[in-house]
Each structure stands twice: as structure tokens, then as C-alpha cells.
């Protein structure tokens, strides 16, 4: 009789199965997918300071844009990670 009781308790566990629930990989804004361009160079042979300043200023601008992009990536990663961890 005790074996029957043990068998009944074991049987109560039934047959369990796993149903996968998957979350689609979060999409990144399209603008962030483009690579940062190379810095511009000054035309060889120029002696004009204004041309140098023009190129240097453009490069500074390019750096600023790239910095914004990297900051956006960091923000995107941190926020998506937080969202992903919230569903565990």
C-alpha cells in the first residue's frame, strides 16, 4: 500500500513541458547604423590659414556628430538592457 502512495505522489508531478517565449531583438535607429566618416585632410600646398581653419572646423563638427552617435549607442544599449532585464 505504501508503494502505491509513493507512486501516486510521484505521478502527481505529471508531465511538464517547456514553451519558449522569445523576444525579438530590438531594432536600432537607422541613423546609428552608419559608420563615422574619416576626418578631412587639408589640400597639399596650401598656405592659407583660412583653408586650414575651414577643414579643422569641419573635422571638429564631424567629431561632435560622431560623439553624439556614440552617446546615442550607449544610451540605446543601457535602456534596452534595462528593458530586457525587467522581463526576467
Amino acid at each position: 500500500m505504501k508503494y502505491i502512495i509513493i507512486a501516486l505522489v510521484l505521478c502527481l508531478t505529471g508531465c511538464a513541458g517547456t514553451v519558449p517565449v522569445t523576444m525579438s531583438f530590438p531594432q536600432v535607429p537607422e541613423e546609428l547604423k552608419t559608420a563615422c566618416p574619416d576626418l578631412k585632410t587639408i589640400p597639399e600646398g596650401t598656405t592659407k590659414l583660412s583653408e586650414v581653419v575651414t577643414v579643422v572646423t569641419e573635422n571638429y563638427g564631424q567629431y561632435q556628430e560622431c560623439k553624439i552617435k556614440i552617446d546615442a549607442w550607449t544610451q540605446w544599449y543601457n535602456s534596452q538592457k534595462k528593458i530586457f532585464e525587467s522581463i526576467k
Partner: protein
Amino acid sequence: MFTWLIEHTLLLLPTWFWFVIAGAGAVLYFFSGFIQAIPFAQARLAGLSVKYIGLALLLGGVYLTGGAGVTALWKAEVREMQDKVTAAENKSKETNTVIQTEYRDKVKTVKEVQIVLQERIVKEAEKMDAECKVDAEAISILNQAAGGKK
């Protein structure tokens, strides 16, 4: 095949059905003793058969009752998880929109500043070029720095 059979036949049956099966098994098992007590050789054999059939029904019924319970728990958990995933996906899209808007605004500001600076350079170019002549070596150094190569 076995999983398909479980999912499409056994687990579709209501939980009470398995209770009934288990109950019937228990009743058969209980009454098998009375059948065996009848003083005939055939009755003893029949009683033994009923006992094992009852036992099999009892164990099977209890097993599938447990299975139905576990399935119900899993289904509830899956539903809850699915809701969480949907909410997370929506939140993810909203976050993307915020990041995209912030990015566009900041880049727009940088481009506006660039336009202002280029206008200033054009305006001051004559003065700058008159007062300073850039050496070719300086250009070479700046270009090498921009290229980041040895």
C-alpha cells in the same frame, strides 16, 4: 510523435476527466478485494485482473491529473511572459523613438553651428590669410593627425 499525442489528445481533455478515471481506478482496486474473496477459482483470477486494472487506472488518472495541473500552470506562466514581452517590445520602440529624436536634434544643432562657423571663416578669411602664412610642414602634420597613420 509522443509529444504531439500528449498535446493534441490527452491534454485537451478536461482535468475532471482524469479525476473520474483515477476515482474509477480507486473503486475498482477497492472492490477487487471483495471479488477475490468469493470462493471460486475464476473469481480469484477475475479479482486479481480487476485489481491490476484498477491500479493502472488509478496511477494513470493521478498522473494525468498532475499533468493537467502542470500544463495549466505553464500556460498561465507563458501568458504572463508573453504579456511582459509585448510590453517590453513596445517600451523598446518608444525608447528608440526618444533616442532617435534626441540624436536628430543634437546633430541639427552641430550642423547649425558649423554653418555659423563657416560663415565667420569666410568673413574673416582675408584678415587671417593676410596676417598668417601656414608652413607646408604644419599642413603635413595636421593631415597625418587626421589620417591617424604612421
